[in-house]
Structures are given as structure tokens and as C-alpha cells.
């Protein structure tokens, strides 16, 4: 067996073992929407009961997204901004060029 084949088989072995671990761990998670899961017994009731008078937002999603986890949303915005700048760098676009009419 050539070294290349050995390496391929090794990669497959690692992938399968990792996938097996992940699938086993996933089978232990509470099912989606389970009312007895930790998320549904602690976090959700708090937001449902307190988010309106604490944040003034009538919508739970907005209260969680923009207020309780505002730092997370700041990170998301920064990711989008960084992605835009990366697009500019990859595509090689110059900024600050002359406006229409002045270009040769």
C-alpha cells in the first residue's frame, strides 16, 4: 500500500471516529421543544416573564437579541463588516477613487 493510500485511510478513520462521537453526543441531547430540558425550565421562563418590563421591547426575540445578548449581536455586525472588507481586499477594489466623469 502506498503512503498516499495509508494517509487516505487514516483520514477516513479519524473522520468516522469523530462523527461517531458527535452522533453519540447528539443522541444524548434533549429533544427539540422538550419542556423539561434545562433551557425550557430556567432561561425561557425568565425571558418570557421579565423581558417586557425590563427592556420595554414587546417582542422576546428583540429583547434577547438586542438587549440581553447585545454583545453577541455586536459580534455578528462586526463579522459582516469584516466579511465586506475581506471581499474588497480579495476582489482588489480601490476605495476613494475619483467620481464618475473624472475617470479616464
Amino acid at each position, binding site marked *: 500500500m502506498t503512503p498516499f493510500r495509508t494517509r487516505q485511510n487514516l483520514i477516513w478513520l479519524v473522520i468516522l471516529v469523530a462523527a461517531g462521537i458527535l452522533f453519540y453526543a447528539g443522541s444524548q441531547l434533549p429533544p427539540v421543544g422538550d419542556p423539561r430540558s434545562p433551557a425550557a425550565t430556567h432561561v425561557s421562563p425568565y425571558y418570557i416573564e421579565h423581558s417586557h*418590563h*425590563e*427592556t*420595554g*421591547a*414587546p*417582542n422576546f*426575540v*428583540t*429583547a434577547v*437579541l*438586542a*438587549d440581553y445578548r*447585545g*454583545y453577541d*449581536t*455586536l459580534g*455578528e*455586525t*462586526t463579522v*459582516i*463588516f469584516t*466579511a*465586506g*472588507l475581506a*471581499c*474588497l481586499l480579495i*476582489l482588489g*477594489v480601490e*476605495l*476613494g*477613487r475619483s*467620481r*464618475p466623469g473624472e475617470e479616464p
Partner: protein
Amino acid sequence: MRSPFGSSILDAACRLPVPLVMLFAVYVIIHGHDSPGGGFQGGAILAATVMLIRMVRGEDDVWGLDRTRAALLACCGVGLYAGIGLLTILCNGNYLDYGVLPLPLKPEKVRFMGTLGIEIGVAMGVTGVLVLIFDALTEGETQEGDDGK
């Protein structure tokens, strides 16, 4: 995309929906507290109107939002978000703890306004980045098209 590929029919057809779509984008941003929506969605809708205008009327008609200003708009959006966070620190609060902002309103209304401020920041950032990417992608086509002429 120097020259518009729109005809007079396209030009007339885009005049009607664009103001309405922009108004809807502002509605989505501001009404994101009460209904599905918010800065990301509203910013994307707003960028879509700008792209429509770019496609139909060409790059000459940029409404003052050229590439550089789109990049500036994105920077200002992220800066507004982070700046509101810094403002709360200056008012002796935690980072992004809008309750301490010095506004003459009830406490939960102050948080409401802080949330609205960051939603506007997010919308500005998303609009700027999407317009920037659109311009960057159509720039290559322009050069090829110009060479062909």
C-alpha cells in the same frame, strides 16, 4: 456597470416600487421591536433598493452613495453600535447596558431607545457592506464590458 442596462420601461417600472420598498425597509428596522424584523433584515431590504437603482440606471446615478461612502456607512454603523456601548460605560454602566443612558424617559423606554439605536447601527452596517459587495462584484464586469466596446 457604467451604462444602465435598463430601458425606459424598466426605468419607469422601478420608480414606483423603490420608494415604497425603502419605506418598508425603514418600517422593518423601526418596527423590529414589535414584529419580526430588525436591523439585519431592514438593512438588506434597503441595500436591495440601492442595488435595483444601480442595475437599472447605471453607476452614474448613485444617490451620493458611492463605494467609498458605502464603506464609510458600514464603518459608521458598527461605530454607532460600539459607540452606544462605550457611552453606557461613560455613564457608569456596563458595556451595552442601555438603562443608564441619560434620556428623559422611563427606564424601560430608555432601554427601548438604546435597542433602537443599535438596530439602526446594524442596518447601516448591513446596507453599507451589501452595497459595497455589489459594487465590488459589478466592477469587474464593467471593465470587461468596456474592453469589448
